[in-house]
């Protein structure tokens, strides 16, 4: 039987890659500031947030059971994991920024503000995608070395 933590870690990893794939869609389609992509924005942001919450749930167990061992035997990979967690904070927050900007872009009465928010949504999703891709790659490198 698969231990619960290992199961959660696998779900977290798969959800993370799904989030990367989902973030690519708004990062591309929102280049057009008049394009509405509410479903894409909502789904991709939900994936990122869900993956992040799951990561936060298993993070204390990683610290207790794995972190020291990884740093003893493969410190480079330990630092890769540290990099991953920092980049993940940025990816989640920027996806939320993009979501807020896109949701508001078509609801504001001032057209100039709407155009700026649409531009901001695109920028935020491009940045969130780039950071999330880095997070997912680093996550695979570390998880392939040691797991729960």
């Amino acid at each position: 039987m698969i231990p619960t933590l290992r199961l959660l870690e696998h779900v977290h990893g798969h959800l993370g890659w799904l989030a990367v794939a989902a973030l690519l869609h708004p990062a591309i389609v929102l280049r057009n500031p008049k394009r509405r992509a509410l479903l894409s924005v909502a789904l991709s942001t939900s994936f990122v947030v869900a993956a992040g919450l799951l990561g936060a749930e298993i993070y204390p167990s990683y610290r207790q059971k794995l972190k020291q061992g990884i740093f003893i035997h493969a410190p480079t990979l330990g630092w890769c994991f540290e990099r991953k967690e920092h980049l993940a904070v940025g990816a989640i927050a920027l996806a939320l920024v993009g979501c807020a900007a896109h949701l508001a872009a078509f609801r504001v009465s001032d057209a100039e503000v709407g155009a700026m928010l649409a531009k901001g949504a695109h920028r935020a999703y491009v940045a969130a995608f780039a950071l999330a891709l880095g997070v997912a790659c680093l996550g695979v490198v570390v998880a392939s070395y040691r797991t729960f």
Partner: protein
Amino acid sequence: MSAPTRWERVTPAAMAALLSLVATYAVLRAYDVLFKQEPNPATTVASMHIAMFWRVGVGAYVGGAVGMLVWFGTAKGGRRASRLVVLAIPIVAAMIAFQGLFLP
């Protein structure tokens, strides 16, 4: 000029709060790496203090304060605030990317 709608006030405030959270996180971690002596993780048993969650908490506190300031600042219109937060997006993304990659 008409008064700004709720969306024109809430959105820049929320965006500024989130961006401030990330910027604060990056600055706090960069400060730890550059100016504090940290124990080697290979020789440290996990402690109850989880620095990452702590940094996110401090970032959320700062973000909340910045968000409120932006909310009050948009009482006459959201153009300036929207322009500033949109400008801040690549800057904050670069900050967290630089800190994450070079100052883990």
